[in-house]
């Protein structure tokens, strides 16, 4: 029998204040990112902000400076040029729909970089109205998902646990959002779906830990063990499961990251971050929150 971990006895909850401090920082980072997004200072995808986005493929590697030099000559204003995972592709984004901008960009690239054979691979042009609607839908989706999860957890678990699970899930989503903001990655609809998937996944992890805590709570007599010790024991018991499933899901996300192509690249990155942070939070955030809220009142018998 191969085991990543044998029987462990790690004092996870002993590190709760350190972990909670770190996590508060991550949540604050996420909230800061939301403010920046609201002020239009984040790298918002055209599907939210509206505008034009062109993905251009060249036959040879191309630098941002080269493309920038060509665009500067055309008089197209506010063009934002971004790298993609391969050197042969770039992304050009315009904040506002400008009439004929696409033709001008295409023409000038073909004239000035003709040896590198630029081809427009994809066009995304979103009017302000659609952008606003998408933003609203994304917000509604986040709210609906949060509400749905809250209700389910509230039905299945005791109050303290549902708070713990919610805080942990919120933490994961905020942390990934914050990291994406710092990395200046594009915040778009695909990223939002990654966030919601992360929320679902992270909850899965938390639920498994909570299930074990609940099961163990039913076994112990009052006064025989502190809640903290019981939680530690429960987490240690499910630790190998937590790590194994995180590993397998991580494998899938890593495969997507390296082989899934540029469209899924950032989605996979968000998933990788989410899986790691979600695993961390199910151990270091969810249970400590329950502990701080519930103290020993949870041990009844």
């Amino acid at each position, binding site marked *: 029998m191969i085991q990543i971990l044998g029987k462990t006895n790690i004092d996870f909850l002993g590190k709760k204040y350190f972990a909670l401090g770190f996590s508060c920082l991550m949540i604050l980072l996420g909230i800061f990112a939301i403010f920046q997004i609201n002020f239009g200072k984040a790298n918002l995808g055209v599907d939210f902000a509206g505008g034009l986005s062109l993905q251009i493929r060249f036959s040879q590697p191309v630098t941002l400076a080269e493309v920038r030099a060509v665009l500067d000559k055309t008089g197209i204003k506010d063009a934002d040029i971004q790298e993609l995972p391969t050197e042969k592709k770039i992304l050009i984004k315009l904040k506002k729909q400008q009439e004929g901008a696409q033709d001008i960009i295409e023409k000038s690239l073909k004239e000035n970089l003709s040896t590198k054979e630029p081809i427009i691979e994809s*066009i995304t042009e979103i009017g302000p109205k659609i952008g606003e609607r998408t933003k609203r839908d994304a917000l509604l989706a986040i709210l609906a998902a949060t509400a749905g999860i809250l209700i389910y957890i509230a039905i299945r678990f005791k109050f303290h646990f549902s708070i713990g699970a919610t805080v942990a899930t919120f933490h994961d989503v905020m942390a990934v959002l914050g990291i994406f903001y710092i990395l200046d990655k594009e915040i778009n609809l695909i990223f939002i779906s990654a966030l919601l998937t992360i929320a679902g996944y992270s909850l899965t992890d938390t639920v498994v830990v909570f299930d074990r805590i609940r099961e163990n709570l039913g076994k112990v007599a009052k006064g025989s063990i502190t809640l903290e010790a019981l939680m530690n024991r429960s987490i240690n018991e*499910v630790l190998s499961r937590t790590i194994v499933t995180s*590993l397998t899901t991580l494998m899938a996300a890593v495969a997507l990251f390296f082989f899934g192509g540029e469209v899924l690249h950032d989605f996979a990155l968000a998933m990788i971050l989410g899986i790691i942070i979600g695993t961390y939070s199910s151990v270091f955030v969810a249970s400590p929150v329950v502990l701080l809220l519930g103290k020993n009142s949870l041990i009844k018998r």
Partner: protein
Amino acid sequence: MRKAIYIRIALIAFTVVLAIIFFLPNTPLFNYMPDWWKKNLPNKGIVLGLDLRGGSHLIFEVDLKRAREITVERIGMHLQSLLEKKGQKPTVKVQGEKILIQPVNDEVKKIIRENYPDLSISDQDANIVFQLPESAFKRVETTSVEQAIEVIRNRIDQLGVAEPAIHKQGENEIVVQLPGVKDPKKALEIIGKTAQLEFKLLDEETLLWKELPSLIKPSEEEAFLAQWKARLPEGDEIIFQKIVNKETGEVYKRPYIVKKDVLLTGDLLAEAHVSIDQRFNEPYVSLRFNDAGAKIFEEITAKYVKRRLAIILDGNLYSAPVIQEKIEGGNAQISGNFTLEEAKDLAIVLRAGALPAPVKLIQNVTVGPTLGKDSIEAGKMAVLIASVLVIVFMIVYYRLSGVIADFALILNILLLIGALAALNATLTLPGIAGIALAIGMAVDSNVLMFERIREELRLGKTPKAAIESGYKKAFWTIFDSHVTTLITAAVLFHFGSGPIKGFAVTLSLGIAINLFTALIGTKTVFDFIYIGKERKSLSI
């Protein structure tokens, strides 16, 4: 006990066969199937989304305000000619959505009431104002969108796009999906052109036209119009002709003063096609009006001999030939420095009919065929590598039980593909990501159970007892963890559009099927191995 296991094995085999039958159309094997098979069994399979197939997803917004105004303008025009025919001579003016008529006597009122009983009458300053009720406008709005869809469908048919999808969204939006469209830019131009063809008279009575500059730059257009507005005689307007310098590609505009009255519109066209001018070897569009149009055209040309008739398309003047003599038979032509390609496109839109109101492109998501192909390849690769990684890991970590989990995983993928095919679901790139993630998460249930079984074994239970209690204890954990992911997937499905919906579909199906494969699939294999006899060890 034995019987129950065989029933479960039969159930699994049945679902696998079903999945294969549904997925068959997506494989080259389908071509070799006999005709009765192709006709009677599932033949559609999984549909590829535009992001994988290449193509355009467009959303147009119909300008409803313009649709209302155009309706009122038409009524105004009609009233004027009607009143003139009956010997009445009031002035009819259209102001936004109102028709102002002056002077109005009982006879005029009677004529209006007979023809347009809907119009309500009210006084405003010295004018009598006629207005359509809101209910009539609502009808106009609905029919405008419906007509626009019809016209767009006609135009796309002429473009020759296979399997286009066109439908209404919300109140005034039209969604157009063009899978595999070869020249998206051209498609966009042809679909979005209003193609409102109008014939108006050049005003040569006012001598102002002599003061007009011959060419201005497009950037000066607004300032120019503002400057001239006050000077124009009542009932006149300025319309520009677009002039392109063929060598430098620079665009100029040449202003003309024309009378606002529309003499004839493209509604009455019977045909439009491209011809080549023999003398200059230049393409032009020749038009033929239907009987009613031909009659009006004859009247106009008879009435305005030696005057210049402006041919205006979507607000741009194309040419303004001098009427040499009365033209019978309803043939006309539009020339204007076209390339052959432009002339062909113009003929298409004129043939397909004008849009009832202008449309505005508010979303264009176009993916080129190469990117789509790359995405499919990349997606397949990622799914394959994810599968191999997970399968190898499970065997290394859980030995024989890992093989059983892998069996469940492969069953899971197979059923997922089958279910997608059965639903004729649209597979998008995020959808492929959903499959990859589902693979990663699929083994979760088995890991939960295996870890549980290992614990039970450590407590000294026999393999069979360990399996039984492991499954029992892990069940609710598995159930809870699946439901939470399903909730987010359901939300994504409800709020997401196109590609995101595809992700939600694959993820939620993957998870639901996972419940089946993990709880029924692997359990059956374990039961099958440990049936009846009690083994001493369990490879886990």
